[in-house]
């Protein structure tokens, strides 16, 4: 369960210039649900994602995940929370292009210092699930956009997080690949993962799998 209570978030842009990215936001997201954050650029979607993933802290209010106030965590505990609970798919994938698919997908496991056999089996499971096992040893820069996105999803999934966050996941994909991504979301939902997607792609706006649409404008929910 993810809860936003009276969240305000503002950014300082210079000495006397403060921008309110989120204004008095209250949200409840149930475990295992798929939530789509709609809205134009600058509406506050990404700010919500960064608060859920404890990348940033609110200016005021509380972000509670599974009864734990994650907005109050220190950097060290926020990293730990992120490592164990959050998988992130970035708009531009944020992959390390010069290394292999396997090496990219392994990255979130490094801090856990797991046994190499266990790592190997986790990598195989994740790559298999997203249909890219045959690219295991390929260098990321040689893959297409859709394939790179699957690598990014596999990397987000490998720690088996409860919450998967995707920021504009289809911004760089054509319609067919975007539909493939929606199929992946369905699979994740079946596994009871909470998926939060920030997008302004109309493909997401009438989907059966989506439990909740949150439309945002100028930092407020409309």
């Amino acid at each position, binding site marked *: 369960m993810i809860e936003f*209570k*009276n969240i*305000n978030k503002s950014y300082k842009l210079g000495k006397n210039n403060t921008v309110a990215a989120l204004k008095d936001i209250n949200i409840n997201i149930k475990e295992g649900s798929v939530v789509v954050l709609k809205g134009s650029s600058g509406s506050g979607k990404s700010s919500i994602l960064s608060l859920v993933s404890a990348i940033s*802290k*609110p*200016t*005021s*209010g*509380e972000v509670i995940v599974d009864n734990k*106030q994650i*907005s*109050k*965590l*220190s*950097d*060290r*505990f926020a990293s730990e929370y992120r490592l164990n609970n959050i998988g992130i798919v970035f708009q531009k994938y944020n992959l390390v292009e010069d290394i292999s698919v396997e090496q990219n997908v392994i990255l979130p496991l490094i801090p856990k210092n797991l046994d190499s056999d266990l790592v190997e089996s986790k990598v195989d499971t994740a790559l298999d699930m997203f249909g890219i096992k045959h690219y295991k040893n390929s260098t990321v820069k040689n893959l297409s956009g859709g394939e790179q996105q699957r690598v990014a999803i596999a990397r987000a999934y490998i720690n088996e997080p409860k919450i998967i966050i995707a920021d504009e996941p289809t911004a760089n994909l054509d319609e067919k690949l975007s539909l493939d991504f929606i199929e992946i979301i369905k699979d994740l939902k079946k596994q009871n993962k909470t998926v939060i997607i920030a997008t302004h792609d109309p493909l997401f706006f009438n989907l059966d799998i989506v439990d909740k649409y949150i439309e945002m404008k100028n930092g407020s929910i409309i």
Partner: protein
Amino acid sequence: MILSPEILTIYILNFLFFVFGLIALNLSVKIYLKYDKNSSEPIQYTLERQSYLASTIIKYIFIVKVPLFLFFIFTLDKLSNVLSGAMCGAGVLDATDYGTMLITLKVLNIYLFALWLVLNTEDVKHENQPYIKIKFALFIVLFALFLSEILIESYTFYNFEIDKLVSCCGTLYSSTSDSIVSNIFAIDNKILVSIFYANFALITFAYVFKSKYMYAISNLLFIVVSIVSLIMFFGTYIYELPSHHCPFCYLQSDYYYIGYLLYALLFMGTFNGIMALFKDDLF
């Protein structure tokens, strides 16, 4: 007044410490007065962010302060070449009224800074940061001591007079001296060495039997016992001279700077022992 490059370096660093320390002090006071872990108000989030800044400043002051203390000792030794009558740092410290107080304050401040560091490490290990108010309250006290140290140090350096004759360590550390130090010469060496080893045995005993308080207190006691034993007994073997009792001369090149190693081990070891009071996982 002497303005050697070493003294100038210390002045500049002290000024920087003062400026950054003042920023940390301002934040520490705010955190101490207004920090409320349960609050979700903007002020609380601001204080949480500022606590990282204050902690970083204090950590870096400490990191520079430790080598600066060694540099201070080195400076005292170097100044002994300039002051008439001084043979080592002991004579230089005796040249003004506050020399002994200065070095005592410097050692105390290093211990307190290190204590702050231990508190900070323990604090950030826990999700609810149980020591956050204590550590910033400690820094407020520490800053007052730190400021006193800077002022006394500046006073000491300012009042050095090249043409004034000062005492050498042979005079200062002798039974005929009229200082407090002369009192230790009344102790019999056999008794002193027995106390030294008994204290060491007590530390070992406390460690083996995991007695936290005994371990900390015996380590605290060991600082005094060790320094007196060094002056009265062990030092004479380093000098190969039974009548020489200076605690500074073995910091010089003639004795291969062995004093730095002895003092560093003594201070680090005893500090670690005293910190048993604040750590859960020492044993």
